[in-house]
């Protein structure tokens, strides 16, 4: 399993680099090399590190470990084809990490990032809608059953397209430079990550790399079914490129607009689920 984690981290960070490169090229800038995020992580690992005097020291360090822990667990769930509900739970637990990261430092920028993170809890609602729709179709939360259902009936992308759109919005919400990335908006410096630097930032980069890998991997598995691994990687890259295009062309929304768009997405998918539920009943 350790090799999966190393591979997932490496690919996730490489995807972050590609994401930045694509956004830069669309905006007419040369952009950093695609391995820049890997270099960043290595660089931060050897930077001088300390904990701010105003911080809640244990929590400040703890959230970094929890971030790595939960996304490692999420990758294990995907690889072992565990429960989708567990994956959903882990995704929600990431909210605690975002919140704790900002609260723990004592910095007002971190605190505002943390509050924006919790305010944008609406970004989790579309995921709940996705899980509900998938359960209605497949009758199971286990990834093995969901993949088996797709082998028999075809990709869920066709049967549950609105649910796929909802998950796409969820992934978009968590991408750097996305229109929904209000927690790391520049008017609050780096938001909840402002005070985490050095080894702590390296740890967070690792966790976020894993997160990107897990979310893209989950999308392909959930909506396109079991495919050869190289094809899965290629599809993940395609998905990432589409997200980069959206990020490059969209301005950062205000916090309340973010919540509105995400809630509307949830509302539309909820109506879809009710219709599907009635049809299945």
């Amino acid at each position, binding site marked *: 399993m350790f090799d999966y984690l190393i591979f997932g981290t490496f690919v996730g960070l490489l995807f972050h680099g590609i994401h930045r490169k694509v956004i830069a090229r669309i905006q007419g800038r040369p952009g950093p090399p695609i391995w820049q995020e890997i270099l960043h992580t290595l660089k931060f690992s050897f930077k001088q590190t300390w904990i701010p*005097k105003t911080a809640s020291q*244990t*929590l400040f360090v703890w959230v970094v470990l929890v971030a790595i822990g939960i996304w490692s667990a999420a990758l294990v769930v995907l690889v072992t084809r565990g429960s989708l*509900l567990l994956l959903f*739970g882990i995704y929600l637990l990431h909210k605690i990490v975002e919140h704790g990261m900002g609260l723990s430092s004592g910095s007002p920028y971190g605190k505002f990032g943390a509050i924006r993170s919790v305010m944008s809890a609406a970004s989790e609602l579309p995921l709940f809608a996705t899980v509900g729709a998938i359960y209605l179709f497949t009758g199971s939360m286990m990834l093995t059953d969901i993949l088996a259902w797709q082998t028999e009936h075809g990709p869920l992308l066709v049967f549950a397209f609105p649910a796929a759109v909802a998950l796409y919005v969820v992934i978009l919400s968590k991408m750097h430079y996305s229109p929904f990335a209000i927690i790391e908006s520049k008017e609050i410096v780096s938001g909840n990550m402002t005070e985490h630097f050095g080894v702590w930032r390296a740890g967070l980069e690792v966790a976020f790399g894993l997160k990107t890998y897990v979310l893209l991997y989950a999308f392909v598995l959930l909506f396109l079914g079991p495919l050869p691994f190289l094809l899965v990687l290629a599809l993940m890259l395609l998905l990432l490129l589409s997200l980069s295009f959206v990020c490059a062309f969209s301005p950062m929304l205000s916090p309340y607009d973010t919540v509105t768009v995400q809630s509307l997405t949830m509302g539309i998918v909820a109506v879809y689920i009710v219709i599907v539920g009635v049809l299945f009943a």
Partner: protein
Amino acid sequence: MFELPVTTIEGPELFVLEFGDIVNYFTVYTAVLFTFALLFTILVIISRPERQVDFAFGGDAFYTKDITPGQFRFQRFMALACGMATLGAMMSGDVFNFTLFTSMVGITNIGIVAAYRNRHVLNAAFQYGIVAMIATVPLFGSAAIILATTGTLSMWALFGPAIAVPLVAKIFLVLGVMGEGMAPFYVAKAEITRAPGAPYVLMIHVSSLLLFLRVVEIVISM
């Protein structure tokens, strides 16, 4: 020996602790939630609060907020109680016990907020108290409806295909948990920016989120 009727939602059963007809249990899903709650309960015990920095508007001045020993002790006690109640809710196999633990989470959450002596924060705590009190009606109402219609409160029986739980009871249960797990209300107000005590304030979020995740599992499985 009990057998969990549904394993296609939360994974296989891992552990069962039987107290007569009350059967607490772990599945892969609830074990992960329990572990997470345990981690943050330990964190509450061992960590000290941050010294929140505030800027004075209209100038370059800033100041840090200090937490008095009395407030520190009370907040930590409440956060610890909140963690214990969350742990109970994560492994409970009985709907009534789950609702009891949920209401205890609501009470302790209000305590965490109300420890800070600031007029705005105390006003907010009062309002959360009203929401939490009102939420007990659908919360315990759901347990009452389930008992009246099915004759049992054991999740082991309710998760089985033989028993149909009324939709209204499920909706009430979700509404009750939403009212008691007050993170969404708390964060929607500016008071959260005023109250220091990160590890304890975070416990409000942890408990609300874990309760929500547990109730999703219960409602889907019933």
